[in-house]
C-alpha cells in the first residue's frame, strides 16, 4: 500500500515536471532586464571631489528641484565629446548638475575639469564604481534625470547628443 502511494506521488510529480518543461519550452529564454520606470535615488554617502569631505545624499538632493546626475571619467573618450553640451546644460538655472566621477584618478580628473570647464554644481567621487551601480548604470557616460519627487525619471545611456539635449530641456521645462 505504502509502495503504491509513493508510486502515485512520484507519477504525479513527474507529470508536473513534464508540464513545467512543456510550458517552459514556449517561453522565450532571452532575458531583458526591466528598465525601471521611476526608481528612487539611492541613499548613500560619498566624498566630495574638491573638499574630500563625506556628504550625505539627503543633503545633495532636495525636494522640488530637478537634478541631472552625470557619470563621467577622464579616461572616457565619449565623456569628452558630451562635455560641451553639459556646459550648455549648466547654464539652465532650474536644474543642478551633479557629476559622479567614476573609477578615476583624481589628478587626471582635475586636469580634465580645468581643461574643459566645470559644468557641475557638485562632483562626487565614485572610486570603486559602487555608486554608479546603485544608480543602475551600465557604464560611462550615463546621465540620469531626477525629478521633483526625488525619483529617477529618465536615464540616458552613452554620451549626450543634440537630440538628448533637447529632450532633457523639454523634461525640465
Amino acid at each position, binding site marked *: 500500500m505504502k509502495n503504491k502511494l509513493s*508510486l502515485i506521488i512520484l507519477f504525479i510529480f*513527474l507529470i508536473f515536471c513534464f508540464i513545467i518543461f512543456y510550458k517552459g519550452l514556449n517561453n522565450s529564454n532571452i532575458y531583458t532586464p526591466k528598465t525601471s520606470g521611476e526608481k528612487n535615488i539611492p541613499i548613500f554617502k560619498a566624498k566630495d571631489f574638491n573638499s574630500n569631505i563625506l556628504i550625505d545624499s539627503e543633503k545633495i538632493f532636495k525636494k522640488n528641484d530637478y537634478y541631472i546626475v552625470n557619470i563621467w571619467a577622464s579616461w572616457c573618450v565619449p565623456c569628452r565629446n558630451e562635455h560641451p553640451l553639459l556646459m550648455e546644460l549648466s547654464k539652465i538655472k532650474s536644474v543642478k548638475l551633479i557629476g559622479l566621477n567614476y573609477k578615476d584618478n583624481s589628478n587626471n580628473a582635475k586636469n580634465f575639469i580645468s581643461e574643459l570647464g566645470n559644468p557641475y554644481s557638485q562632483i562626487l567621487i565614485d572610486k570603486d564604481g559602487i555608486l554608479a551601480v546603485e544608480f543602475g548604470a551600465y557604464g560611462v557616460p550615463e546621465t540620469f534625470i531626477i525629478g521633483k519627487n526625488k525619483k529617477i525619471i529618465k536615464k540616458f545611456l552613452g554620451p549626450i547628443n543634440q537630440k538628448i539635449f533637447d529632450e532633457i530641456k523639454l523634461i525640465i521645462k
Partner: protein
Amino acid sequence: MLANQIGYYSLILGLLVSFLVCGVSIKDFNNKNKSVNQNVLILSLLQLNFVIVSFLSLIISFVNSDFSNETVFNNSHTTKPLFYKISGTWGNHEGSLLLWLLVLTLFIFLFLIKSKNQPKKYRILTLLFQQIIIIGFFLFVLMTSNPFNYLFPVPNEGLGLNPILQDPALAIHPPILYLGYVGTSIIFSSSLAAVTQNYVSKDWGQHIKKWVLVSWTFLTVGIMLGSIWAYYELGWGGFWFWDPVENVSLMPWLTLTALLHCIIVLDKRTALSSWVVILSITTFTLSMCGTFLVRSGILNSVHTFANDPTRGIFILVFLFILIFLSLGIFFLFHKENNKNLNSFFWLSRETSILVNNWFMMYFLSVVLIGTVYPIFLDVLSAEKISVGPPFYQKLIVPFLVPFLLFMALGPKLKWIKSKIEKKISLLVFFIISVVLTLIILKNININLPFYTTLISAAFFLFFMTLKDLFVQKYNNNSQAIAHFGFSLFILAILFNSILSSEIITNIKIGEKYKYNKSEIFFEKIVEKKESNYNSIVGYFKITDENGKITLLNPELRVYNQPIIITSEADIKTSLLDDKFLVMNLVKGDEYFNIRYQIKPFMIWIWISVLLFSFGGLISIFKK
C-alpha cells in the same frame, strides 16, 4: 552533393535495420539456443556501419565545403583551417546528434561482443532497450534535425563557425564527452534488462563495472576538456562557471560516481542492489534531461545552438517515455534482496560507500535545483532569475569537510566488521595535516577557521592516500590514485582561489604600470593576418617583485566569417602558477583595458583531474 545523398539514405537504412534487429532478437528470445543468434550480431554491425557512413559523409561535406548541405552552410566557411572544418561536423546541433547516434550504436555493438559469457535473455533484452533509445534518436534526427538538408540554389559561401568554438580543446571535447555521456545508455539498458531477468547480482556487478568505469573515465576527461576550453578561450580567468550546461554534464557525473562506488559493493556481495539499479536509471535519465535542457533552447547558454520548440517537445516526450518505461519495469520486476542487509555493520565499508552516496545525492540535488529552479519559477510566476556561483559554493563547500574525511577513512574500514587499527598512524597524519595547514595559512596571512578545517581535511586525505600509494603493499591502486587525485584537486582549487590576484587597468602603448614593486610594460602592438582572422598582438613585459621577467602576448582577433571580435588571453603556465593576461580595446581610444591575473597551481587542477581519471583507467584494465 553525392556524400549528402549517401549520408541521408544511410541514416534511413540504419533506422530500418533497427526494426529488423528488434524483430530478429524478439524471435530469438524464446529460442532454445544457448547463444544469441549470429544474425543479431551481424545486423548490429550493419547498423553501426550505416551510422559511420552517414557520419563520414557529413565530415566529407564539411571538408569539401559543400554548401548545398544546410548544416555545412550554417556552420562552415572555405577559409577555415581543415582541422576546424572537421571539428565543425560535431560543433552544431545536427552533427552532434549524429555523434550521439554513432556512440549509441557503437556501444551496443561492443556490448554484444564483450558480453558473450552473460545469459542470453539478458543480452537480448539489453539490446532491445538500447534499440528503443536508438530508434528514438534516429527519428529525432530524421524528423527534426536532419543534418543533410539540401539547399538550392547552392550558396557560394558558408556562414562560418563561431570563433569561440575554434579551439583545439573544444574540437575533441564533444566526442570524448559523448563517449561518457551517451555511454551511460548501456548501463541504463543493461540494468533494465538485469531487473527483468532478476539478474542484479554479483556476476552482473562485475560485468557492468567495466562499462561504468569506461563511461566515468570519458565523462571526467570530457568535462575537463570543456573546462580547459572555458579557461583558455573565454578569457575570464575561471574554469568553472556553474553555467546550466556545465551543470547538466556534472549531474550524470555525480550519479555515475555514486554508481561506481555502489557497484564495488555489488561486486563483492549483493547488498544495495536496488540502489544500483536506481542510480543506473537516474544517470542516463539525467544525460537525456541534459540533452533536452541544452538542445531545446529552454536554457540560454553557449551550447544552445538552436531555439526550436519542436525539437524540445520531441526530446521531452521521448525522455518521459523512457522515464515511465524504466520506472514501470523497476516497480514491476524488481525484487529487493534482503538476505544480506542484516549483516550491515555501521563501521563497514558498505556504510562508508552509502555515506559517499548520500553526499553525492546531496551535491546532485544542489546542482539540480540550481539548474532547473529558474525554469520552474519562470513558468509558475513569470519571474526570471539566474542562479550564480555563490549559491553552489555556499551549499557545497561546507559539506566538503566531512566528505573529505570520509573519503580518507572509508576505504580503511575493512570489508565487513572491522576494528579501527593503527589508530596512532591516523592520528599522526591528522596532526601533521592540521599543523601544516596552520603553518601555510600563517605564511600567507589568512586566518579563517573555515579554511583551516577545509584545507586540513584535504591534506589529511592527501597524506592518507599518499601513504597507500607508496608505503603499504596496498592492492587497490586505482582507488588510491583516484582519491589522491581528488585531494590534490581540492587543494589546487582552494589555494588557487585563496592566492589568486588580479590587476585591472587602462594602459597606452609605451606606458608602464607600477604596483607593489611589480611593473607591467606595454611595449608595442603588431598586426597579424591569418586565413580566417586578422589580429592585433600586444607585447607586454611584466617584471615581478623578484625581478623575474615574463613576456605575454594577448591578442585581439577579428574573425572574418562571421565577423566577431574575440579577445585571446595569453597564458604562461608553470608548475607554480599561471600568468594570465587579456586585453580589450577601449572604444575609440588609444587606451587598452588589460586584466592581469596570477593564478597559482592552475595546472594542478588539470593534472589532478587526469590523475583521478587515470585511476578509473587502471581499474578498467585490472582483472
